[in-house]
């Protein structure tokens, strides 16, 4: 399966990556080769094999509804690139209007 310039641009945008033309060209080639490799699986007959999203024979791993200790705010904000008044500070995002 071939991958085109526009698809790479779309995926880059969703990941908020700014690619140069040279990088985009390179990823068109690399991603295309990865998809071609995966396409070899199409040759295998999967008749009667159910779609598998989890390979472990384990279900229902649950925890009881008990509050546990949290991190201290100093620890939390130590990982923040910027903070203000106890909040994480991020480039302004607009909601709605």
């Amino acid at each position, binding site marked *: 399966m071939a991958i085109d310039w526009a698809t790479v641009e*779309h995926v880059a945008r969703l990941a908020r990556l700014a690619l140069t033309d040279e990088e985009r060209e390179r990823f068109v080639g690399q991603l295309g080769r990865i998809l071609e490799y995966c396409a070899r699986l199409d040759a295998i007959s999967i008749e009667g094999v159910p779609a598998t999203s989890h390979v472990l024979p384990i*279900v229902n791993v*649950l925890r009881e509804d*008990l509050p*546990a200790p*949290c991190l201290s705010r100093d620890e939390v904000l130590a*990982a923040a690139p910027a903070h*203000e008044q106890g909040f994480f500070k991020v480039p302004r995002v607009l*909601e*709605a209007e």
Partner: protein
Amino acid sequence: MERSEPMDPTGAGGGTREVVIGIEIHVQLLTASKMFCGCPTEFGAPPNTLVCPVCLGLPGSLPVLNRRAVELGLRTAVALGCRVHSRSRFHRKNYYYPDLAKNYQISQYQYAGHPPLATGGVLEIQVGGRPWRVAIRRVHLEEDTARLVHPAGTGGAASSLVDYNRSGVPLMEIVTEPDLRSPGEAREFLNALRRLLQFAEVSSCRMEEGTLRCDANLSLQPPGGPPGVRTEVKNMNSVRAVERALAFEAVRQHEVLARGEVVVQETRHWDERRGVTFASRSKEEAEDYRYFPEPDLVPLDVDGAWVAAIREALPELPAARRDRLIATFGLAAYDADLITATPAMAKFFEETVTLGPHPKVVANWLSGAVAAYLNEHGVEIDQIALTPARLSALLLLVDEGTVSGRTAKDVLVEMIAHDQEPEAVVEARGLQQISDEATLRVVVDKVIADHPGPAAEIRAGKVRALPFLVGQVMRATGGRANPEAANRLLKERLS
């Protein structure tokens, strides 16, 4: 089931097209900890104090599903008559926005072979006094997002602030089929669903606190024609706002079509102050959430025994509660409806009755004076300083003749306003009923002297003027005279 008449939902006579509404609600589940970690869910804590590596999405952390959240989801599914799926999974909804530190929300997406927790239920509501069944499309579990603050002013204009306390709090999403035909039906549906979830002890469902949020979509369908283009309306903070926003949107779409234009499929926001919906800025690209199964969570299997146990432990739902109150205490339908409007009111009623007062008297007070107070102040019964013990004590004072029924209503308001026992209010304000004849006779004589005309009529046998004089006695005593005694003494004096 047929409707008696086509609804004109807008009240604007907006043409022959039928309004078609579907509702999507999110409720916060009544858990002590978050969906996938042990951080507490309490409201109003200082920012970023209820977070841990899991809800911050730090590398190496792993989510573990909250059993209680699953149980509350199952309880809802059972209460709505849904089919619970024997296996459901969680999925990642990927998007780039700072309200989730992981850059994805864990939710339950629905596609072939991957059903959500439950599908295909029904909630019956009343439309014009008749039952109307609203189909429930699905019920699923997901996590809430962080709270974003956008400081105003030049200093803060370049940045937004994020509080991750709410991130990871358990949410349940309930989606209806497009079965509602007017904004009024949407209101009825929301009220009925809220009541059900409150009685089932699944969620507090307080829209003003954000524990119940509602999005609605609306389209106009020509008779027998294909469905119209729908718009989604968001940002309504009360049931009343949902009704108003939908009424506005129905009229707006009618007007668009009447101008020969087409309705654009879009998300619109409700502006409460201006009373209008407006289109959000359209996104630069189409939504592309790239859902895929959450590899960090194993499938959730629910067998028949688990569902049976949930059904067994289901709290009494509003309709059953109402019927029981009518059967057990002989309440009128109107009173029973009002008392089962909220679980807090129903509980208050039953607790008061166990303390001795006659059930019908309690019902009268709750649906009368107490309901009036709650409406006037916009509060619920569990938010005021009235307890079953205090109401019961007040009713005893009336029963004993210590205060008149009329005075008792003033005492009630004072009790609530000053957080006091009824006896203390009566004592402090000297509101005891006057039954002492010597005292009353002085008042009666003065009323007769002040109103010679009516007094003469009564002496002449025209008793029609008697209530007027009784009223004057009540007035002269600030409502404290025992009305029966006043009546009798006036007759004695004027015979």
